[in-house]
């Protein structure tokens, strides 16, 4: 049974439909990224898929916020969606990703503030 059947064949259908509705409101490139995120989270979906729901919700939330702010996809996820998914699910290597985001955060702040100061 694959992830889709797991999801659609269960009581999670309704929750899943809500995700789809939210995703459809996103810009095209974000929708594509959402598809990739689902695909990459699939291997984590082991047993019922139920435990993936909050993670999917978090990822979709991130995309929504970023799209609403007009941020580019690249800015939000970087160029490594599989890595992003690993970190979201807390799998192997999640630490490394968090370290990278941490550096990214401080670097972006320093860069943008210095541009501001002129």
């Amino acid at each position, binding site marked *: 049974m694959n992830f889709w059947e797991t999801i659609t064949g269960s009581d999670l259908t309704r929750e899943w439909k809500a995700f789809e509705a939210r995703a459809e409101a996103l810009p095209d490139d974000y929708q594509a990224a959402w598809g990739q995120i689902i695909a990459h989270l699939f291997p984590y979906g082991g047993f019922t898929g139920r435990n993936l729901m909050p*993670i999917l919700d*978090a990822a979709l939330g991130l995309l929504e916020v970023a799209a609403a702010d007009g941020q580019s996809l690249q800015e939000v996820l970087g160029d490594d969606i599989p890595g992003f998914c690993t970190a979201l699910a807390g799998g192997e290597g999640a630490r490394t990703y968090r370290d990278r985001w941490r550096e990214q955060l401080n670097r972006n702040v320093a860069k943008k503030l210095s541009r501001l100061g002129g």
Partner: protein
Amino acid sequence: MSIQDIIEGKKQWRAHMARVKALPQDYRIVYKEMQRYLFKVGPVDLPDGPLLPGIVDFFEEGVAAGKGVLELTGNDVAAFCDDLVKDSPTFAEVYQQSISGERGTAEK
């Protein structure tokens, strides 16, 4: 989640973002970078918890006192974020726990 919840949530979120927009630019830059980081790290109570509005409260006080944003947060903004969510479980942690739980019962 009902449609009503979603609409209510969006309204609150818009009001929240309006407060962010009213901050001086240096504060706004740091807030947005922090928010992006926090969403990725994924503490479970982030979207509707008091954390993000609390940061804006804190920043507004700093603005009123005439301080620069880094004076408030320190240069290591990431460390500030990590401290903020230290006690909140992340989605990843909850998820990892749920699979180890399932595995535990599956093996019995």
